[in-house]
C-alpha cells in the first residue's frame, strides 16, 4: 500500500519535472529559431537584435542596467508596500461597515477603467519628475487587485465559522482576528501576486514619461538612439525582476500558510 503510493508520488513528481523540461526546451528552440532568422534574413540589429546581440548587450551594460534597476526596484517596492497598507485598511473598513462597501466599491471598479497611461502624465505634471510620481503610479495600479481580493476574501468567510465563534463568546475583534483574517489570507496572496507584476510595470510606465534614472527612462533612451539590443536587455531585466518578486511572494505565502494546499 505504502509502496504503491510512493511510486505514484514519484511518478507524479517526474511528470512535473518533465513539464518543466518541456517548457525549457520550447524556449530554447524559439531562441535558436530567432538566432537563425536574424542571421539568415540579415535583419539589422536596430530592427531585431539576435539573442547573442542581446546577451552581449546585457554583459556590456550590466553596471548601468543594475543602477537603473535599483531605482525601479526602489520605486516599485515602496509603491507596492504603500498599496498593500492602503488596500488592507480600505478592505477592512469596507468589510466592517457595509455603507462604505456599498458606496466605495463601485467607485473602485470604475477607477480601474481609467487607463493608467492617460493618468500618468497628469501625475507627472502635479508631482514633477522625481521618484514620488512613480511611486504614486505604482500605488494606483497595485491597490486595486489587492483590495479587491481582500474584500472578496473577507466577504466569503464561512458563515458557520462566524456563528460558532459567536456561540463560543468571541467578540467582534476576536472574530476578525481569528477567523476573517486567516480565512482571507489565501486570496490576499493571490491579489499580491497579480499586484507584484503590476508594480514593476507601473514604475516603468512612470519612468517612461520622464525620469533621471530607472529602467523606463533607460528604455526610452535606447529607443531614441536605436540601441534596440539594449532595449531588449532591459526587457529581460524587467521580466526577471517581475518573476523574482512573484516567487518571493509565493515563498512567503507558503511559509505563512503551511495549511494551504493550493500553493
Amino acid at each position, binding site marked *: 500500500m505504502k509502496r504503491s503510493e510512493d511510486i505514484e508520488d514519484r511518478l507524479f513528481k517526474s511528470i512535473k519535472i518533465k513539464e518543466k523540461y518541456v517548457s525549457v526546451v520550447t524556449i530554447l528552440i524559439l531562441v535558436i529559431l530567432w538566432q537563425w532568422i536574424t542571421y539568415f534574413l540579415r535583419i539589422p540589429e536596430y530592427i531585431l537584435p539576435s539573442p547573442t546581440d542581446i546577451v552581449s548587450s546585457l554583459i556590456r551594460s550590466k553596471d548601468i542596467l543594475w543602477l537603473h534597476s535599483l531605482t525601479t526596484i526602489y520605486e516599485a517596492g515602496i509603491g507596492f508596500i504603500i498599496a498593500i497598507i492602503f488596500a488592507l485598511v480600505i478592505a477592512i473598513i469596507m468589510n466592517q461597515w457595509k455603507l462604505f462597501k456599498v458606496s466605495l466599491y463601485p467607485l473602485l471598479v470604475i477607477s480601474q477603467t481609467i487607463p493608467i497611461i492617460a493618468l500618468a502624465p497628469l501625475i507627472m505634471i502635479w508631482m514633477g519628475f522625481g521618484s514620488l510620481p512613480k511611486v504614486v503610479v505604482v500605488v494606483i495600479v497595485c491597490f486595486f487587485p489587492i483590495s479587491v481580493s481582500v474584500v472578496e476574501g473577507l466577504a466569503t468567510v*464561512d458563515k*458557520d*465559522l462566524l*456563528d*460558532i*465563534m459567536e*456561540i*463560543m*463568546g*468571541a467578540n467582534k475583534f*476576536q472574530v476578525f482576528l*481569528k*477567523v476573517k483574517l*486567516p*480565512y482571507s*489570507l489565501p486570496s490576499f496572496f493571490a491579489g499580491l501576486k497579480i499586484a507584484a507584476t503590476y508594480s514593476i510595470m507601473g514604475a516603468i510606465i512612470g519612468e517612461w514619461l520622464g525620469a533621471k534614472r530607472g529602467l523606463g527612462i533607460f528604455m526610452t533612451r535606447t529607443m531614441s538612439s536605436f540601441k534596440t539590443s539594449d532595449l531588449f536587455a532591459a526587457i529581460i531585466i524587467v521580466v526577471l525582476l517581475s518573476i523574482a518578486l512573484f516567487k518571493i511572494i509565493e515563498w512567503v505565502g507558503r511559509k505563512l*500558510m*503551511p*495549511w*494551504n*494546499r493550493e500553493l
Partner: protein
Amino acid sequence: MVEKVYMANVNKTFQEDDKILKVLKDISITLNAGEFVSIIGPSGCGKSTIFHILTKIVKGYGGIVKIDGVSIEKQNKKIGYMPQKDLLMPWRNLLDNVCIPLEIQGIRGKDRKKRVEKLLPIFGLEGFEKSYPYQLSGGMRQRAALLRTILIDSDILLLDEPFAALDAISRSNMQEWLLDIWQKFKHSALFITHDVEEAIYLSDRIYVLSHRPAIIVDEIKIDFPRPRIKEMTLTSEFIGYKKRLIELLR
C-alpha cells in the same frame, strides 16, 4: 428547579422565494439540570434546526424558547454547542483548534496547553497536536471538535451527532468517556443521534421525531440505573426499548 432548556410548541418554517418548507411543528422539549436527553429522528426531519434555534444561528420561530429560564433573545450565556460539521479551522493545527474557546476566554498560551495536553490522550489525539485538519481522519476531527466543545466550559451541552464518523470501537469509547465527564461536571446534555442503541445507552429520556415536518411522536424514559454499563445492551429491557424505538421511527 428551572429547566436548562425549555422549548414549548416551537414551530419553524423556512421560506426561500416562494418555496415554503415546514420543518418543526409543535415541538416541546425540556432539558432539566443534570439530565442527558437524546433527540432521535429520520434524516432531514429538522433535528439540527432545533439546535440552530437554541444557538440563535437561525432566527424567527414560533413558540417559546428559554435557556436557564431566560428567553433566548435576552440570554447571552455561552453554550457548549458542537455542530454537525466539525468546523475546525483549516489554518490552525489540532492543538490550536481545540484551544479556541480558551483563547476567547483570554487564558494564556501556556495555561491553555497545560489544560488541553492532559485531555488529548483520552480523546486519542496524542501525537497529532501539530497536524492540520486536512491531515486528520474524519473520526479524529470529530473528537477534536468534541474536545473543543467541552472546553467552552458551559454547563449546557448541545451535541449534534458527535459520533457519526466514528467506528464502533472508538464510538463506544467516546460514549463511555462522554458519560464520565457528563457525570463529573454535572452537565445537562441534549444529544442528537441517528443511532437507536446509542440513544438508549446514554439517555435519561429520548424524544422521537417524525419525518418532516417534525412532530414529537413519543418521549421515552429510559429506566436503567447509572452509571451505565455496556452489559446492559444485552438485557431484554434494552432490546425492548430498541424494538419500540425502531417501531416509532418507521
